[in-house]
């Protein structure tokens, strides 16, 4: 049987969903694989839900919004793009093919463009083959990685940074200082890498208590770095010392939040 990818589309009501309707009204034909979820604005697309969709076996995720400047909610699509950039960064860390997720702008009058994008994206996913997370036996390491990315997307730190990127870069703070885009990206990249690693550590420590040595081996990190993350995670109430074997403390994950 030929591979029929499962593609989930998150579309804003005003532009891209209307563009999808127009494709139909114009009888423009495109592959059947996409399943569209209507949201009021692409800004509603939470990074968590994109990553969760991959965890649950989607072969591709397509996010669509209004063209910049045409957003029904003025700037919702700009926030969609900022969030999407973080999703891309996280996915790059997991090892999942980054081509499986795409953000596109489609206006209400671009039925043909909508169909072209869906056709192209479907072909791209077909060429990639099924997601290693699809089906009955998802690839376990990759699954842990994408779960860690999802957890990182839930972290306060990343969400604050993404939510504030626009005001940090566009507006001056109370001291009259403005952050350059380069500086922000630097901060963001560090934060994404750190939160992703911490989430990985958390998920490992959740399975069984783990030592710094073991962590540094499994993550390919200098033990000093692993220790720094553990210290930060203890402060946040994510891990605790489970027991001490000989002179080696083993860390276990604590139940968090919801």
């Amino acid at each position: 049987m030929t591979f029929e990818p499962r593609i989930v589309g998150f579309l804003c009501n005003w532009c891209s969903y209307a563009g999808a309707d127009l494709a139909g009204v114009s009888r423009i034909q495109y592959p059947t694989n996409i399943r569209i979820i209507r949201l009021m604005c692409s800004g509603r697309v939470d990074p968590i839900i994109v990553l969760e969709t991959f965890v649950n076996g989607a072969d591709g995720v397509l996010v669509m919004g209004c063209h910049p400047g045409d957003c029904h909610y003025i700037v919702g699509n700009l926030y969609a793009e900022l969030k999407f950039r973080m999703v891309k960064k996280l996915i790059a860390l997991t090892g999942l093919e980054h081509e499986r997720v795409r953000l596109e702008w489609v206006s209400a009058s671009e039925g043909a463009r909508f169909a072209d994008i869906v056709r192209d994206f479907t072909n791209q996913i077909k060429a990639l083959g099924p997601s290693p997370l699809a089906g009955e036996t998802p690839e376990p390491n990759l699954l842990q990685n994408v779960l860690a990315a999802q957890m990182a997307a839930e972290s306060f730190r990343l969400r604050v940074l993404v939510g504030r990127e626009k005001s940090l870069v566009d507006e001056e703070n109370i001291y009259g200082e403005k952050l350059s885009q380069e500086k922000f990206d630097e901060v963001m990249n560090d934060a994404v890498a750190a939160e992703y690693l911490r989430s990985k550590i958390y998920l490992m420590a959740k399975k069984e208590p783990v030592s710094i040595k073991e962590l540094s081996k499994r993550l390919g990190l200098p033990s000093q770095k692993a220790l720094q993350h553990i210290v930060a995670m203890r402060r946040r109430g994510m891990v605790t010392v489970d027991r001490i074997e000989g002179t080696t403390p083993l860390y276990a994950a604590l139940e968090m939040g919801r």
Partner: protein
Amino acid sequence: MEHAGEAARIGVFVCHCGINIGGVVNVPEVVEYAKTLPGVIYAEGNLYTCSSEGISKIKEGIAKHNLNRIIVASCTPRTHEPLFRAACEEAGVNRYLFEMANIRDQCSWAHMHEPEKATEKAKDLVRMAVAKARLLKPLEEPEIDVTPSVLIIGGGISGMTAAFCLANQGFKVYIVEKEPELGGMLRHIHKLCPSMEDASQGLDHIVNTVNSNKSINVLTSTVVKQVKGFIGNFEVAVERTNGETTNFEVGTVIVATGAANFEPIGMYGYGEYSNVMTQLQLEKLLKDGQLKKPEKVVMIQCVGAREEKGRTYCSRICCMTALKNAMLIKELYPDTDVYVLFRDLQAYGTHYEDWHRRAQDAGVKFIKYVLEKPPQVVQGENGKITINVYHALLDEQVKISSDLLVLSTPLIPQEGTKELSQKLKVPVGSDGFFFEAHVKLRPIDFATDGIYVCGTAHSPKDIAESVSQAFGVASRAAIPMAIKRLRVEAITAMVDEGLCTGCGTCIRLCPYSAIQKDEKGVARVTSVVCKGCGTCAASCPERAITMGHFTDEQVRAQALAALGRVFA
């Protein structure tokens, strides 16, 4: 009827839409499949669910099977959701307990040659709708009072027309004009096409009408400083050029700020030679009777308009303006040669094409130029200028020695448009003009309730079109003010006070300033201001914000259902 705590009892109505859906998707199969889904009590197929018979079927189903969630699988929610929601409401089911599966526009019409795959997709879309419907919550639309007064920004022909229309309906009108007098662009126009009456005559009449109307408060040399609030309850602060500020409340706002004329600095010798001018400058010469007899006049169309990038649009009025002024020159000085160099002459509609013909009959010469070889302007002898133009139809270079070169330049967004758009929280489009809620169906509304746009603030248009839109906005703005009480959007964001840490991220990113910190230091959404985009919910660092009708749980349920994950 309250359905919050009850288990979902879902009814699914699958529409054939004649052969539009039924000719591709196997509707009976989708109906049978729907019956197997958890929570679905009843499912049926309809020839047309939107017909009065189909609507009755929904109501019957609700009564007979005690349904509390309704799904219609049919065309698209963008056109038919209001109809089906109303049917639910009439049968006692909260209108927000309705969900639609788009199996026509996004399925049968897009996959006409793949009936089996289209049927599978339709089943998936129904499953996704069921997954969401199970989690839907009833919502109530809050009611608000409407202040029966209106702020009109801009005292040109559009703003003044809207002002006297609304004043005559008994509403209090504040009209704010940044210039010392009313009139706008029309004050600089000589004659009106096609009637050829003096622009000043009509203008004086309407300015007097507005100035003498007791219900209209005319605020000249004044700009809008701040607009806060929402439909029915806007708080406005305006500032006079002398620094004096005034505050008042209005129920609605009309944007009629007009447009500016593009100054083609550096193009075709403009700014370099004194006898190169814009149509607007020519209007002034004609109006003041100061145009000395020229031997030859050349007009160039589309100067700085219909560009590849930047001002890509057609300014709509320039062809008509050139025809009008060419004819006026011909009337004044019949021996003067008038050349119009055009790319495409867009003398649209019932009147302007007639003027095109009359201009040809009167001897105005029309030369088509092409964008690749635009006319060249060089200094000539005796104060004249020489225009070299490639005549596209003759395929040869033509040289015209002229006394006067008139450039037809587009209307461009009024100065301060961007700032005003930010004050009002309404969008501008990529051309920089104010951007309507829907290009065809809501052409003079903004997406923000209670704010409307008319005239050239929206896009270049002529006086008749501006006046039509002004009548339009007057009637649009009158609706909420006449009703006095309004139901507003129920799909809004809500903050869980227990989870909110008051970090303020949502406050910064809300495009409508709908979120403020309350006395407890946590975020609170003013639901009548919230437009329901959900950007705050998707960005909240504490995930303390629930976006009504599009909750995390609902969106997740749809996504998992799309992937064939079972739910129970």
